[in-house]
């Protein structure tokens, strides 16, 4: 789903080395095709599956995006970049882009912000109960988007749901979570943030625990209090982790689908229809517009791939701090 962690890439480079200095002479020569046969048999099944279901569809997806595909019968007419130009001038497309950006900003700010705060609390050694807190906080990691959607659909329900009841206890008249076009965006964002939080805390906590304890000691000796230590030691040392979380959260939020499908079905109207959801609607609901769906999928994919590559590059520069 997402590129690997910075830690991993450094592991790769160090562990490659012993293999590249072969201790037996014949290995230094370039392996022959005949010699390679056995290795090919080992990797063949993997590349067969990836070839048919990942590499080929990339090209096929682009080809489809250059065609208009008849809703029934699948007859194709080549239209060049027409699907793209029509998309870029369609207010509906930009509407889905806006929704995607809303989810993205909401997820990035809250899922990362809360996660870092929680991870700092969890990193303080406690004599007891630590395990219980962690269990409760990490649990959304194994929850599917469908389950998250169902659980929150109950909580948002105006009659039997709990959110508005709890809000009323503190004197707030709760909104129509799923039927107001503004609040439905918030409702979906809360659900996405909730599901993403456990993962973010795990990553942030791992990052915090790798920070050299001597830095804290030094800051303490210099008279820095807890807040100043967090601000001047933890957060700066955590930048590579935060950057990683940023990328993962941007990508995950752009791909939000299950929660939307269950909570709002993209509505009310098109209020919570993000790009992915529109791809699904165009491709699979009612009259199919496979060409247009593919064009949108391709634009979204370009964005996600771009972000992933930026992450790879950013990491190689930013990761070294000490």
């Amino acid at each position, binding site marked *: *789903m*997402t*590129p690997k*962690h910075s830690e*991993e890439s450094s*592991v*790769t480079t160090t*562990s490659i080395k012993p*293999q590249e200095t072969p201790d*037996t002479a014949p*290995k230094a020569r*370039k*392996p022959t*095709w005949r010699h*390679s046969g*056995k*290795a*090919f048999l*080992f*990797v063949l*099944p*993997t590349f067969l*599956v*990836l070839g048919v*279901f*990942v*590499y*080929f*569809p*990339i090209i096929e*997806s682009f080809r*489809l995006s250059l065609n208009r595909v008849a809703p029934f019968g*699948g007859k194709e007419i080549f239209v060049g970049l027409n699907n793209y130009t029509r998309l870029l001038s369609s207010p509906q497309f930009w509407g889905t882009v806006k929704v995607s950006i809303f989810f993205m900003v909401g997820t990035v700010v809250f899922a990362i912000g809360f996660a870092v705060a929680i991870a700092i*609390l969890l990193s303080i050694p406690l004599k007891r109960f630590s395990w219980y*807190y962690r*269990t*409760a906080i990490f*649990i959304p*990691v*194994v*929850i*599917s*988007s*469908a389950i998250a959607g*169902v*659980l929150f659909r*109950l909580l948002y*329900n105006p*009659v039997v*749901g709990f959110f508005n009841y709890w809000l009323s206890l503190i004197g707030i008249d709760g909104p129509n979570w799923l039927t107001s076009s503004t609040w439905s965006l918030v409702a979906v964002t809360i659900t996405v943030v909730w599901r993403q939080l456990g993962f973010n805390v*795990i*990553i942030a906590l791992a990052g915090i625990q790798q920070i050299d304890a001597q830095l804290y000691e030094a800051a303490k000796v210099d008279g820095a209090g807890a807040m100043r230590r967090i601000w001047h030691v933890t957060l700066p040392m955590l930048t590579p982790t935060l950057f*990683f979380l940023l990328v*993962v959260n941007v990508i995950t939020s752009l791909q939000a*689908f*299950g929660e939307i*499908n269950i909570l709002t079905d993209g509505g009310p109207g098109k209020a919570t229809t993000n790009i992915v959801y529109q791809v*699904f609607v165009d491709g699979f609901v009612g009259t199919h517009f496979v060409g247009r769906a*593919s064009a949108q999928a391709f634009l979204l*994919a370009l964005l996600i791939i771009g972000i992933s590559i930026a992450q790879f590059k950013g990491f190689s520069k930013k990761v070294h701090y000490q």
Partner: protein
Amino acid sequence: MTTADMTAADAQSTPLTVELEHDAEPTKRRFGELPIHLSLLIIGLIIAVPIIVAFFMSFTPLPEIVGRSDPKILPDTWTLENYDKAWRASPFPRYMLNSFIQTGVITIAQVLLSILAGFAFAMFEFRGKAILFSILIGSLIIPFELTFIPNFLLVSDLGLANTYAGLTIPFLASAFGVFMMRQFFMSIPRDLYDAAKIDGASDWFYLWRIMVPLSKGAISAFTIFAFLAAWNQYLWPLVITNEESMRTAQIGLRFFLVNQERATDWGAIMAGAMIVMIPTLIVFLVAQRQLVKGIAMTGLKG
């Protein structure tokens, strides 16, 4: 001094040293733990609330849920009828069976193929190795959105919609799994391989009898990832199945929600959600440490 005295003194001295170690820290520290406990308790409860609410509501009788003016978390009377209803009214046994088959096939295939390819990339020198490896890693950044429409068309054209083959076939291999296995295999000293070779072991024998048992930790971590990702799949099973008998648990739950919500039967819906969630919750509770470590190390959650 008698022996009894000595043991008493020993018993006392142990907590005493602990006490002393803590005194080295500022004394207000211990008092300072309380606010941390409190905040973590509140945060933990807030995060767990959706699951706690669902859990209790799944045991609450329907009249109680709709009849109360202010919602309560705990049921007044406990009932199992919601589970009975979910189990019967919607074919949940069938959904669960479908999910177990789909998840089982995907997980086993991904683990096996990843071990094979990971072994080749770790141990063999062959033509095109570097290029193949780059192509493999490159596929990690291809989002599913890009591939699922052509895959849908292909799988439907092959007549595999609404079949287990159709549910599983696009996911039988995992580039991430190959990468993870390769990384781990490369950390095993190559001398072991050379020694086994000298003793006349075949590559096949070495892989399954020596490498795999040594890599149990990494393999089980990847198995957990693969299992969770497959069980929690949503978009693909949604588009590739439209017959009720072939729906997976996640998709079945979605349609169960749509049907029962009209009847405001939230107890049954939550019972359904609990049933679908239970396998992943079990995995989480049993393998939490391993799962968390795996996520922290790879930055992936399957």
